């Protein structure tokens, strides 16, 4: 299978501070790739470079190539808006639009891009909520505010919202870190289910989570990619001393 992403010599800066240093890696299609590493190692910046969200921050800069389906998303002619429709993102804290209903939250991506047809929207909203394992919990209260849901439900609502625009990739930036263990477990089950059809990249500082849900794991440290490989190999037989120290809890 061809890789979904091929990252070549990726560097990223915030003003003069370099946060990513020469990252080279390939991300497999229809698999879960986990990015782990201690706080401040550049995990979040890394996945924000994959859908050109990094540059939305003032003072942020990127160099290098990110090939998505073989096309460099940083090429001159590429529209970041189109890239972000193909590569969805779920954030650390659930961020449903508070002034919109559950239905409108899921439909937001389509509505804001000009889809008006009620039937199409109904179908997409239902399918997205079902995909996000949320439909059964909210099907009778679609007109309630998205902010009325619990934290875990809100996060699944955000996943449904991201899925509604039919992306090929889902980037999840520590999407469980604000949730309790039960809500986290639900999302982890969901991640495994989605991996059958989507390419998923998750950032996590929870090593057990990476071990549970991911097929591949990348270990970042101080902006550098230290080790990358199948999750089983990284956890059971790390090649690099730093990876082993991090996994055994010697620092973090």
């Amino acid at each position, binding site marked *: 299978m061809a890789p979904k992403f091929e990252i070549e010599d990726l560097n990223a800066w915030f003003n003069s501070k370099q946060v990513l240093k020469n990252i080279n890696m390939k991300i497999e299609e229809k698999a879960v790739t986990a990015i782990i590493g201690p706080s401040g190692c550049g995990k979040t910046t890394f996945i924000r470079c994959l859908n050109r969200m990094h540059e939305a921050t003032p003072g942020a800069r990127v160099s290098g190539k990110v090939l998505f389906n073989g096309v460099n998303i940083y090429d001159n002619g590429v529209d970041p*808006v189109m890239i*972000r429709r193909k590569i969805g993102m779920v*954030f650390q804290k659930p961020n449903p*639009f508070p002034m919109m209903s559950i239905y409108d939250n899921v439909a*937001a991506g389509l509505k804001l891009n000009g889809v008006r047809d009620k039937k199409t929207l109904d179908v997409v909203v239902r399918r997205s909520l079902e995909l996000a394992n949320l439909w059964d919990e909210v099907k009778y209260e679609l007109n309630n505010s998205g902010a009325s849901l619990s934290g875990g439900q809100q996060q699944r609502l955000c996943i449904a919202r991201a899925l509604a*625009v039919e992306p090929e990739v889902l980037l999840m930036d520590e999407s469980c870190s604000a949730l309790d263990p039960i809500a986290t477990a639900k999302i982890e089950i969901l991640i495994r289910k989605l991996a059958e059809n989507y390419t998923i990249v998750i950032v996590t500082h929870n090593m057990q989570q990476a071990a549970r849900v991911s097929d591949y794991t990348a270990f970042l440290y101080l902006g550098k990619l230290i080790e990358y490989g199948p999750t089983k190999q990284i956890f059971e037989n790390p090649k690099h001393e730093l990876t082993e120290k991090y996994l055994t809890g010697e620092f973090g």
Partner: protein
Amino acid sequence: MSKINCYKFRIIKDYIARFLVYLSLTLALIPIISILYEVVQRSVFVINLDFFINSAPTVGEKGGGIANAIQGTLITISLASIIGTPIGLMSGVFLSEYSEYKLSLIVRFFSDVLSGIPSIVIGVFAYALIVRSIGFSVIAAAFALAIIMIPIITRTTEEALKIVPLSLREAAIALGVPRWKTVIAIVLRSARKAVTTGILLSIARIAGESAPILVTMGYWRWWFEGLDRPVANLALNVFVFAMSPFENWIALAWGSAFLLILLVLWISIAVRVLTKGRY
């Protein structure tokens, strides 16, 4: 023993502080209450149906009303809002959402300067720009009032949009929504109450302006005749009628003052309702 004395002293200090607070409150309320009392007491007998349907009386004429001034004031305020609101709103959006441009520093600086310029100076500016070419007119007055509105709306819009969490903007952008649509559909929509409040406050501010009206259209005692002609105005009614020697004119001045206060009061209440008392 000394501890007990210390405790008593604290109680006394508390009483003194409380007394001073209530005293200041009373002092602050005296002018407001007395103005309201005076205006209401002197205007109740003039406020009747005639007051609302007749226009300004001529010399020697009995009774009369301020219908033409109400019409004129509403036209002037509406026109000023039509000119000033979009400019102020869009400047506020620019300052909040596109602050990475150096231009925003300049815009913010001049917007602050503009809000500090005395309104008579803005009136003279409108005079030089518009009155000298098309004459005393409601369009010149509305232009001057719009310039007064713009920095107020700009500032309140900017502040209102900055409160909208960054995470909502990111959520929309990550869905592949273009930036301008994110600003309109997510950011402005989240902040619509605070933005409306800013617009209403600016309208309250210009509703009672008299200096710029004086230099852009002067006193006019007839009905609306066209955008290139003056219209009557409540604030100038107060000024002109109060200076007159005729009793019924003076009564109309009090009535106009009462209506102006009512207008501003109504806007303040609308703001309260919109924001649930945050301003």
